[in-house]
């Protein structure tokens, strides 16, 4: 319980600094945002009016407090381009990204588990070498390039997958699968490579433990020892580290969505960056960071439930 409370308390300053950072993004812009938005021909009155609309005419501290109070109430401001609430824009786009993230993780797990187990069991042999080489290459291939190659191969050359517009899963699951398959595999391969490396080393550690020797000594067969005894123990660190991949994954999805023109959260961010919709940029960045913080918090807490050592003597280390 102490660990849980401590973990929550340390999250508070993180959220505080996060809010300051997101708030100050808009002040990093060289010059006046209102002036940039309205262009060079804008009259001083128009600039003044937009300044007032964005709240930029108030003292900095007041601006921050107003913004923070609004955010706490779930109000991320109004888009400067669409004039719609930013939170609504994000909620419209988020399901696509969430689906993409889940699909990616499924692909990653389907590739990483068999290969990782094989590599750990056949340590030092050809299968291990091949798996590790594949992992090194997989980690180094940027998903967006892989995505473009997939488009080239499967859509342009062989016409296997149509490059159709996004269809939500509840409208037509098959069409949805068709437009999600390539993006999920393109991003999933990199995540699989990361998972594979972790799983291999973690499983190799577990296979060297005493309880595995006991299992062998009891006369259990190879598969039972590996899958029933070693693997569950090897999974705890892999799941934690896998969950921490979420930050990298979210970043990668931004560009995957761009390659495949998927109307997700990342595309919203890129579009608002180019249309200079600063409030939407702020809102999306904040939501992305909050997702990462919440997922990490949940993983830490689950981890402490799975592994009691963390609860009893796990002193918080910064």
């Amino acid at each position, binding site marked *: 319980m102490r660990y849980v409370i401590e973990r929550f308390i340390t999250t508070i300053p993180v959220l505080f600094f*996060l809010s300051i950072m997101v708030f100050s993004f808009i002040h990093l812009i060289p010059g006046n945002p209102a002036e940039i938005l309205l262009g060079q021909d804008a009259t001083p009155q128009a600039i003044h009016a937009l300044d007032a609309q964005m709240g930029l005419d108030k003292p900095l501290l007041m601006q921050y407090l107003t913004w923070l109070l609004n955010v706490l109430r779930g109000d991320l401001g109004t888009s400067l381009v669409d004039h719609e609430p930013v939170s609504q824009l994000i909620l419209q786009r988020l399901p696509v990204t969430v689906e993409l993230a889940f699909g990616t993780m499924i692909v990653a797990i389907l590739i990483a588990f068999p290969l990782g187990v094989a590599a750990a069991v056949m340590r030092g042999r050809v299968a291990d070498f091949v798996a590790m080489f594949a992992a090194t290459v997989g980690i180094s291939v*940027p998903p967006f390039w892989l995505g473009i190659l997939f488009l080239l191969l499967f859509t342009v050359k062989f016409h296997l997958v149509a490059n159709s517009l996004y269809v939500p899963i509840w409208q037509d699951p098959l069409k949805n699968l068709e437009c999600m398959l390539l993006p999920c595999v393109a991003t999933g391969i990199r995540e699989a490579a990361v998972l594979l490396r972790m799983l291999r080393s973690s499983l190799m550690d577990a296979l060297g433990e005493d309880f595995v020797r006991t299992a062998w000594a009891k006369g259990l067969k190879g598969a039972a020892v590996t899958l029933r005894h070693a693997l569950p123990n090897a999974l705890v660190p892999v799941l934690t580290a896998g969950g921490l991949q979420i930050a990298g994954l979210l*970043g990668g999805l931004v*560009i995957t969505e761009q390659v495949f023109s998927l109307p997700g959260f990342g595309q919203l961010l890129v579009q608002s*960056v180019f249309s200079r919709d600063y409030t939407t940029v702020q809102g999306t960045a904040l939501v992305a960071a909050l997702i990462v913080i919440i997922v990490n918090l949940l993983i830490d807490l689950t981890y402490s439930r799975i592994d009691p050592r963390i609860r009893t003597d796990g002193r918080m280390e910064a």
Partner: protein
Amino acid sequence: MSLAPDPHFSPVEPTSSPARTLPPRLLRITNPSLATGGALVLFILVVAAMAPYIAPYGPNQVDYSAVLQGPSAHHWFGTDQLGRDQLSRILFGARTSMEVSVGALVVGAGLGVPVGLFAGYYRGFLDTWVIMRIIDAIQAFPFLILALVLAAMLGPGSRNAMIAIGIGLVPTFARTARAQMLQELGKDYIDAARVVGCTHARIIFRHILPNALTPIIVQATLAMASSIVAEASLEYLGLGVQPPTASWGSMLQSAQGYLQLAPWLVLFPGLALVFSVVSFNLLGDGVQRWLNRKIS
């Protein structure tokens, strides 16, 4: 099976044992990742530095008589929609990529290492509740999203891309430096330095930093790989270095419009990108392995 002694068995190893015929230790490759990665990284750096001398054409030399040509003896990697030689642009792109990535590394390590050392040395409230929590907050942003937002706010250009990517690297360097500081602090030589009256700054930078440097170098090599990808991603999205400057990311972006007509345009810049990322990853793994062996 007979238990009688084998007449050919001799307890003494023959003099020409395999161990003796191996070349001396220096010539033996004990760490293939380090050797391969090091050689490849050196190759990339030389290519990037020598691009103006080895490129067959200028990176922005337009030739409308040779538009969208496939790989040939004249243009090894083909030409793009403006007839520019792809090989030359890739060579110059290596330059852009290395410049921005090294710059980002300087920003990331230049800010992260002192902050991490300072936090680890003084510890206390400032460390636990302010510095490390700011680092957590920076780390909460997905790396690419942070770089994208910062690049968007600061404006395009290679200098801003360096800053945008560099800030995303600060947490990694700060954490590594802090962990090293905590490890070194308990050692006797620090007490000795204190006793002879060294200032805090001297202890941190003259005594501890050199001892903490090796893991930071490993981090830097691995961070180089992620900066290269981040730089290419920013340029693919249209931020970072602006056209007509050759860069792998912007080459990929414009190539995506010619998938049907000129598929080689997406192939070669991507291969260059993968090649450099693999090289830096290999080097990083190699340095890490070398370090682990040295410690054990």
